[in-house]
């Protein structure tokens, strides 16, 4: 028997039983970041492929959500800060070693790109829109002419943003559940999947929905593979990682993880999308909403569970 007891000031409510410093803001921030990355990546790729006409929702309408998602996401990050008045120092320092630091910079670059992208399409939504100033009109013309060249960095930055949402967690060696390199690609592909779901919800074109639905099916499959891969990696790892995996395999997060993330968030939408591909009539809204909710809950569970895992000594 080995038992550890705290005998002094450490058994106090503000610190013990474990340091839970990140609350609901961080999972929402990660979710919105992933969603934005997914939408912008697909918008960029289909612009590069020259399919703006066939993929209207992907290239034009869904990106309108992105500036809002990113600004709300940054606001969530701001809400998470405990020393709020000093937040501006995030942008007076460049520290490449700090994922929090370069992530804030990536968002700072992504937000204006997404605003410019959406603004260049605003006259297709509101034909009578007037930019008031001449330089804005000239700028709009320039953006419309150079969309192809904006799409490239946008798609690349979207991948960086999506991976960043995972690396923000995986960079912490002290939290064994997060400390796996697969978390970056996992969060990226999960973000792509939520982005695709969002496009499906906004699209009115049957062909587009079908194509994005197929892509979503691919993302879901890869995501499931990465999750299995992650858990296998933990089980083959050190004691702290085995304990981290056990949070999902019999531990306190087993039920929410398997019910909300695996079953309702991945398997059921995958099944419904497959049924639709075979030819059954399935309201595509259902898998899309399930994917979005599953993605959100997945991030809540990962952030919450990760903060429980720790080194043993």
């Amino acid at each position, binding site marked *: *028997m*080995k*038992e*550890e*007891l*705290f*005998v*002094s*000031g*450490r058994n*106090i*409510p*503000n*610190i013990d039983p*474990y*340091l839970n*410093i*990140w609350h609901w803001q961080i999972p929402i921030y990660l979710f919105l970041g992933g969603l934005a990355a997914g939408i912008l990546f697909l918008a960029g790729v289909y612009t590069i492929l020259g399919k703006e006409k066939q993929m209207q929702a992907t290239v034009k309408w869904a990106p309108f959500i992105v500036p809002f998602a990113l600004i709300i996401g940054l606001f969530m*990050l701001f809400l*998470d*800060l*405990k*020393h*709020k008045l*000093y*937040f501006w*120092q*995030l942008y*007076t*320092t460049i*520290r490449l*070693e*700090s*994922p*929090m*630091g370069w992530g*804030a910079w990536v968002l700072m670059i992504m937000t204006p790109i997404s605003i410019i992208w959406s603004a260049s399409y605003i006259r297709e939504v509101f034909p009578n829109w007037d930019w008031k100033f001449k330089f804005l009109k000239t700028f709009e013309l320039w953006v419309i002419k150079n969309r192809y060249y904006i799409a490239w960095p946008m798609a690349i930055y979207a991948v960086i943003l999506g991976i960043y949402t995972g690396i923000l967690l995986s*960079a*912490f*060696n*002290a*939290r064994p559940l997060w400390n796996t390199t697969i978390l970056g690609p996992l969060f990226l592909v999960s973000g792509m999947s939520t982005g695709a779901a969002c496009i499906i919800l906004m699209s009115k074109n049957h062909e587009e929905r079908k194509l994005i639905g197929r892509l979503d099916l691919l993302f879901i499959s890869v995501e499931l593979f990465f999750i299995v891969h992650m858990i296998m990696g933990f089980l083959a790892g*050190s004691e702290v990682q085995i304990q981290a995996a056990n949070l999902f395999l019999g531990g306190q997060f087993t039920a929410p993880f398997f019910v909300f993330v695996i079953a309702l968030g991945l398997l059921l939408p995958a099944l419904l999308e497959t049924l639709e591909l075979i030819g059954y009539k399935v309201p595509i809204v259902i898998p899309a909403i399930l994917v979005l909710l599953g993605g959100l809950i997945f991030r809540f569970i990962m952030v919450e569970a990760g*903060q429980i895992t*720790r*080194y*043993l*000594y």
Partner: protein
Amino acid sequence: MRYAMAIDTRKCVGCSDCVVACQTENNVPIGFCRDWVTETVDGTYPNVSIELRSERCNHCDNSPCVRCCPTGASHIEDGGIVLVTPHKCIGCGACIQACPYEARYSHPDGYVDKCTFCIHRVRKGEDPACVAVCPTKCMYFGDLEDPNSEIVNVLKNRKFKALAPEAGTKPQIFYLT
């Protein structure tokens, strides 16, 4: 210069004087602490062994908290002491997540706070408050690069361990076993 601490787990009686001394010396807000004592019981009665450890920030050589700080508020001072500059800290909590020893906490004023090795006392040539107050004299504070210091001597002659060395942080608090 490389400041470090050696703590004799065989002399420590777990009185928590170090905790109280630190809280008083550094005005640690009520409900928080920068150091704490753990008691690990091994075995079943009557065959038990107990290890008492006064724990705090390990002032790691390879500090993950300093690496992940987005503003540079967490930094390494002369002598390897890891410090937080309150007016640079935005309170993002990354360093709290990064620390395998859970040595950091969010101060009610917003910034992150932790053990400073009582740098204000060390600069005057005094020992940190916890070391100075220990009734069993189980703690040794000093410069690892000074061959004549008491800590170098004690680490030469005793068996010791560090906490979670597998975390790769190169901790600088040594526990004499």
